[in-house]
């Protein structure tokens, strides 16, 4: 479904991501794990068209994504939930969700599905998005991304700014989505949560892929345990 090959990307004066390759198959949940500043955000933002790439290819279905602006990538069915969420703070929860379906008319069935997944959003549908708590805003960001019925859901650090219990809740809802067959690519530094969700994972450090494998294998890998799980 998504294939990234030899991707180099970064900002004006520095390359952050070096020769990264990864793939996500249909129906799979894939995690990119690594510490803060490892290049996870740059990698996802480049895939989703928010940053230009230096070189490499990103193919999604039949489409080459590199060079496409973010709104075109979104319309192809890749929904990105950035760590900063980028909600519309002075618009209602309902309006935020409706815009997720743009340019289509908001789909009532899908709206109900989002409300089923996040009942809190239904209670607060008239509230301004910016006045909600961090956990609720995270739900809204995921809900908005789901409104267009994306075929690939890309999340950058969905636990950003959340207390541990809320972070676990966030991953619990991702697991529900996962079980319904949504394809997920998630970048995360809270490694245990990510490995619990994912089928496969890639470890990225200093902008380079260090290793990859089945999530269940990585959990037991001594390097991963030492670096990310705090277990010697």
């Amino acid at each position, binding site marked *: 479904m998504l294939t990234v090959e030899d991707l180099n990307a970064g900002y004006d004066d520095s390359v952050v991501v070096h020769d990264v390759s990864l793939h996500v198959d249909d129906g799979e949940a894939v995690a990119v794990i690594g510490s803060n500043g490892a290049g996870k955000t740059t990698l996802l933002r480049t895939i989703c068209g928010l940053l230009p790439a230096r070189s490499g290819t990103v193919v999604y279905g039949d489409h080459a994504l590199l060079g496409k*602006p973010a*709104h075109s990538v979104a319309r192809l069915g890749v929904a990105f939930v950035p760590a900063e969420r980028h909600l519309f703070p002075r*618009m209602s929860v309902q309006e935020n969700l409706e*815009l997720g379906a743009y340019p289509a008319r908001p789909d009532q069935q899908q709206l109900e599905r989002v409300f089923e997944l996040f009942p809190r959003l239904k209670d607060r549908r008239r509230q301004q998005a910016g006045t909600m708590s961090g956990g609720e805003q995270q739900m809204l960001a995921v809900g908005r991304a789901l409104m267009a019925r994306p075929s690939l859901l890309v999340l950058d650090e969905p636990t950003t700014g959340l207390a541990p219990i809320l972070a676990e809740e966030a991953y619990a809802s991702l697991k529900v989505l996962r079980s319904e067959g949504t394809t997920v690519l998630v970048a995360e530094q809270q490694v245990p949560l990510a490995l619990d969700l994912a089928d496969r994972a890639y470890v990225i450090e200093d902008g380079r892929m260090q290793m990859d494998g089945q999530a269940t294998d990585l959990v037991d890998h001594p390097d991963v345990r030492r670096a990310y799980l705090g277990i010697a």
Partner: protein
Amino acid sequence: MAVVLDGVAYGLQLALLAVGLTMIYGLGGVLNLAHGQFAVVTAIAAALLMDSGLPTLPAVIVGVLTGAVLALILDASIMRPVYRLQGENRVLLSLLITLGVAFVIDGLLIYNYPFTALNLNVAGPAINLLGVPMRRGSLAASLLALVALGVLIVFLRYTRRGKAVRSIIEDEEGAQLCGINPSRIRTAVFALSGGLAGVAAVAEGMTSSLSATDGLNLTILALIVTVVGGLGSVAGALLAGLLLGIVYSLATFYIGAYVTFIILLVTAMATILVRPSGLMGRGA
């Protein structure tokens, strides 16, 4: 009471003049110093058409469309380099380019049509409103402004396109992630703002007259309203327009027309000192 009503009438026109400016700023981080010139182009086009024998209504409609088309052409041509920049640089370049555009438009119009003015005489006896006799021209202008602002608000609040416009003002990256193309919407809103400036010119033509030399004045008025209301806030522009309209009217009545402009500027400064981001600006 009469003074306040006059102020409300004038305030509606000010708001109409300013909403386009504030929307463009909110959407693109572009401060358009040629905004008043859109109004003047509309006025001159309508006046010339009327001089050539076209009835008022079609002349005015073509005039407003001229303002909108001019804005569209500007956005698609000379504004392109502006959109390639970000943040502060974008605002600065937009100021320089639109100031240049304003000079060119002013020069052309003042040179070619020094004596043309849009003057839509709305004749007839005064009409009583809440026991206050109001000039027909003033009422007609208020009504036009109310309708235009009402349509704009309904568009922004209830239509999908309108919500998309607001979403870009709120968070451009969030909008892109929803599949909204900011540059396309920005172009449409630029044209809309040209058209709204044109409608403001028509309203102005109903109460007094508008000629080729008025562009800069209108731009400054629109800027004051926009800054007081909060850059990028449509609701703020409405509120600030009404507030400043009433201040203007009271000042003219009690002090005299010669200092009203100064009083408007002082009001603007006072507002900004108390609330640096304007009445409805974010972060206030």
